[in-house]
């Protein structure tokens, strides 16, 4: 937003009052382990002892309200369940347009993660596309999901709709 500049003789109807916000997140026990693994190029999940569902990242089970046990290694390969191709510019955006924002269920997980899909023309993005993590080099990794630069197609045949429809 830029400072509104009223023309001469025009009433001053608006003024600019900037707000800036930074915040710190306490990761907690499960996600501390998750972020540590990300730096090492690994993905950790947690399994609910009650419903047996596997969450990435691990968390308290939203369905059962219980803690998850164990740090379960999760594949960095998965399937695009659904996605959108973003072509809208907006304040604070850092991505080059258009880009594909996808819901990806990693093999062995029961909930999706959300990430960039590239290495494919945006118009060829599709539901069921098999993808794998393209990790940044170890020296560039930080404890964030951006340590995975993007997900890229594996070249495998597309997953059948029935195999991922329960994740929509």
């Amino acid at each position, binding site marked *: 937003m830029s400072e509104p500049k009223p023309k001469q003789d025009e009433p001053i*109807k608006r003024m600019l*009052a900037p707000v800036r916000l930074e915040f710190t997140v306490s990761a907690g026990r499960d996600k501390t382990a998750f972020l540590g693994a990300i730096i090492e190029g690994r993905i950790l999940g947690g399994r609910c002892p009650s419903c047996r569902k596997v969450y990435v990242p691990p968390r308290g089970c939203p369905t059962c309200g219980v803690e998850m046990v164990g740090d379960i290694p999760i594949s960095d390969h998965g399937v695009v369940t*659904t996605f*959108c*191709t*973003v072509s809208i510019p*907006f304040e*604070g955006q850092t991505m080059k347009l258009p880009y594909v*924002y996808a819901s990806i269920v990693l093999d062995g997980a029961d909930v999706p993660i959300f990430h960039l899909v590239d290495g494919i023309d945006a118009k060829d993005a599709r539901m069921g596309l098999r993808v794998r993590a393209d990790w940044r080099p170890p020296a560039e990794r930080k404890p964030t999901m*951006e340590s995975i630069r993007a997900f890229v197609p594996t070249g495998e045949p597309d997953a059948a709709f029935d195999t991922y429809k329960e994740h929509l």
Partner: protein
Amino acid sequence: MERCAVIGVGQTKHAAKRDDLSMIGLVREAATRALEDAGLTFRDIDAVVIGKAPDMFEGVMMPELFLAEALGAVGKPMMRVHTAGSVGGSTAIVAAHLVSAGIHQRVLTVAYEKQSESDAMWALSPKYPFQPPLMAGAGGYFAPLIRAYIRRSNAPNDVGVRVAVKDRLNALKNPYAHLKMPEISAAQVEASPMLWDPIRYLETCPSSDGACAMVLSSETAARSAPHRPAWVHATATRSEPNLFAGRDQVNPRAGRDCAAALYKQAGITDPRKQLDAAEIYVPFSWFEPMWMENLGFAPEGEGWKMTLEGATALGGDMPINPSGGVMSSNPIGASGMLRFAEAALQVRGQAGEHQVEGAKLAMGHAYGGGSQFFAMWIVGDARP
């Protein structure tokens, strides 16, 4: 439980930028209209319940603090409700409960958003922990769900276009609506830029400044109201977590449960047959068919047929959003209350050019967050 009636309804002229008014002026424009409709003044009000979308949307923390005096709440109970996009609906429901619980006789409820004062797209696209910074506003969140709906239901591609045209044509009959597009056509919607594939620019709600207010009263207080009241027949709210294994985000359980509880209270077994009109929260045109299924107006996978058959048009057998809906005016915090208020206007026979003839029972609906907060009510012309 006491009966609760809507005896006053007010809304602003919604616009992209109401820079003729401060935030205070905006809420007062709606509130004074509602009071006037109810034949009351601020002095007659027992309590004020206010709602708006998250503070980051305007960059103002707790605006209810400085709005209290503008809404005549000095020395009276005032509270703010906060349920993301559904807030306008749940705010009205909290106000209705204060009446039906017998706590207050006359409650003023207000919801608003002055979107031009900040940037909701920015506020909805922060760097979330444990996610890369790819989120692109509400459209970026809901477009994948729309894609999943189209895939699951095999809906033809032009359903979203049809809803976008229908709602803008309805808005031409609503003097308060933001978008006025007399030339709107399917070709124009189809030619508009694809912002979040599969959502086009004209399949998206606008960004609006606006407010809505209602005066809710007990049966006793309703007796002295100058105009016909709308009676609250049922209210329901439900929520669910944003993400859990097996979550159906296209047809969320919380929405289905909320509708079921609502219909049970109102004695409704066949909503499409028994309701005369519905104002449903449709911020992206594809959500009309999606919510038709979620609310039980159509079997799963067949909501789009209602749109294509013209059932949801003004003059169809189940008019949806005769006011033009969220697709034509979207002051986010107020959008849910506008749905509730428009339902009340219908059964009071006060909807003007967009009146559904003879409407006796109407529904107001709002949803928020990642399709995870739901608020609904049914109002009627007869006492429940």
